[in-house]
């Protein structure tokens, strides 16, 4: 496989092009090239007067954005999306962070079973539990309401927050809490004055990642929302599904707005977290 000879310094990487380096460039190159073309196609079409079987559109216009805004009630959909997103982020942090704290600090009988309960929603495709969940929500007249959509989105979000925050809290020195207690702080004060300030970076990162997930979560919202609770991604699905009667440029204008909506929290999130560290804490390398 690798063509680095043993006379090379054994673990040097990045200099010269080895076989694995070539694979890296080819795989990532093809992937990003196609992805960029795919996105650019949508963006360009949203500004096109008409575009048929030519490399570029015949002319450019912005009127599809006005058109999409009116036709798809975009403002209302955006508003719904953010209300649902904010509620899910707030509630999943409020419920998930204390649970993560308990899991990080305590060993107790039945912990593995509880961990399984918290991991299962992440290990099963949303549509699997979304369908019984939607049926159960209908039973309680919660389907087709804002509360129902928020509750459904909490199912993967709370475990996600727990999985992200548990290792983060483990890193916080427990002696800080002990010291605060020694100085006479009550449990509540320890939380408010010591723990929460230390957890802010983790809470922000988890919150933003939950927001991104909610924005992209199609299945659960689709199954539980009525016409009044559609988030952007669900509204987009319905407009594409009902395509043919609507100009494709207007649909793509909506797609571009969705893309921007999802990108803004992503860009903010990336200022706080290194995406590769989402999964595992990385040992600091000292390669020299």
């Amino acid at each position, binding site marked *: 496989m690798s063509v680095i000879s043993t006379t090379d310094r054994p673990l040097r990487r990045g200099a010269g092009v080895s076989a694995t380096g070539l694979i890296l460039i080819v795989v990532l190159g093809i992937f990003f090239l196609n992805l960029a073309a795919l996105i650019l196609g949508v963006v360009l079409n949203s500004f096109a007067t008409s575009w048929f079987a030519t490399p570029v559109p015949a002319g450019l216009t912005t009127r599809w954005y006005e058109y999409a805004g009116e036709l798809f009630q975009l403002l209302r959909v955006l508003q719904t999306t953010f209300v649902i997103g904010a509620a899910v982020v707030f509630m999943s942090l409020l419920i998930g962070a204390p649970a993560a704290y308990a899991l990080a600090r305590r060993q107790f009988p039945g912990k593995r079973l509880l961990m399984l309960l918290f991991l299962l929603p992440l290990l099963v495709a949303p549509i699997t539990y979304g369908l019984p969940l939607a049926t159960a929500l209908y039973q309680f007249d919660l389907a087709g309401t804002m509360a129902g959509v928020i509750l459904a989105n909490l199912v993967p979000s709370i475990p996600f927050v727990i999985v992200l925050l548990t290792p983060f809290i483990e890193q916080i020195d427990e002696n800080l809490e002990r010291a605060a207690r020694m100085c006479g702080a009550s449990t509540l004060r320890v939380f408010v004055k010591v723990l929460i300030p230390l957890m802010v970076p983790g809470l922000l990162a988890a919150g933003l990642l939950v927001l991104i997930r909610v924005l992209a979560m199609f299945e659960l919202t689709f199954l539980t929302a009525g016409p009044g609770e559609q988030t952007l991604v669900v509204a*987009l699905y319905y407009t594409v599904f009902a395509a043919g009667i609507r100009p494709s440029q207007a649909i793509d204008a909506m797609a571009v707005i969705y893309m921007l909506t999802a990108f803004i929290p992503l860009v903010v999130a990336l200022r706080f977290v290194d995406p590769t560290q989402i999964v595992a804490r990385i040992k600091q390398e000292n390669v020299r």
Partner: protein
Amino acid sequence: MAEHARSLRERLADRGIDRVLWLLFPAAALLGLLFVYPFVYGLGLSLQPNEGAPVIGNYVRFFASDFERSTIWKTLALAIPAAAINVGLSIPVAYKLRGPVRFKRLITTLLVMPATLGTVLVAEGLIRYFGPIGWFNQVLMTLGLVDAPLRLTHNYVGVLASLIITGFPLSLLLILGHASGIDPDLERAAATLGAEPRERFRRVVLPLMMPGITIAAVLAFVAAFSVFPSAVMVGNPAGETRVISIAAYQAAFERFDYPMASAIAMIMAAVQFAIVGFVFVIRGRLYRGTTSGAKG
């Protein structure tokens, strides 16, 4: 009495049970209500077929109908190759990127983007890009590689492509996140003992990457298993990409046969658990050991 109560509390505290555990209650209760209860309710509902039919009537009906039963294979025919491709491509790339590499931050940032696009947007983009008059076919025709446009949308290929676009970055990030945590000293030690690069990869790094690869494979499979929007939009939802989630959706929202829909959801869960369990068993046989570093 008071002394007895205190000693009980102390004894519980010795085993790690104290008031802190109440913090787990809201999360456990909510997931119990919103995840476990619906599953049990759905299971119960699935066992209440139309009058006169046996208890497992819905399941019998599903497996008796070729149209319905085939959705399992159609789903697996998409989900397994998609997961295999995503993980298979991720391993060499993660291997290469695991150390300090230039532009690593930029590459990982670019990789997170498709995950936020979501399946709906990717499907919409694919219809245009991969379509008969899209750029992809235009380039192929201009280069003279094909005479007529390839049919890449509204069939199996389109759905598989959308699963790779949304799934590959996620697999790579999971494997990379895990591989970056592997202690580089272990590979150095192997090199000191005279192992060739190829041998180092096969005997040292790859086994250490296995836990990350397993998790990534499971999550890639699960994500691909729930293909719904892309199977409808870039697939052929009446034919070759009529996946099991479409069957469940149609039962629930087109025929309003909730017991049947619940039965299909239970079958979906069973198939996922079977595959996920199989992956974990295989991994357990291949490798047992610590995940990161030999010494603490």
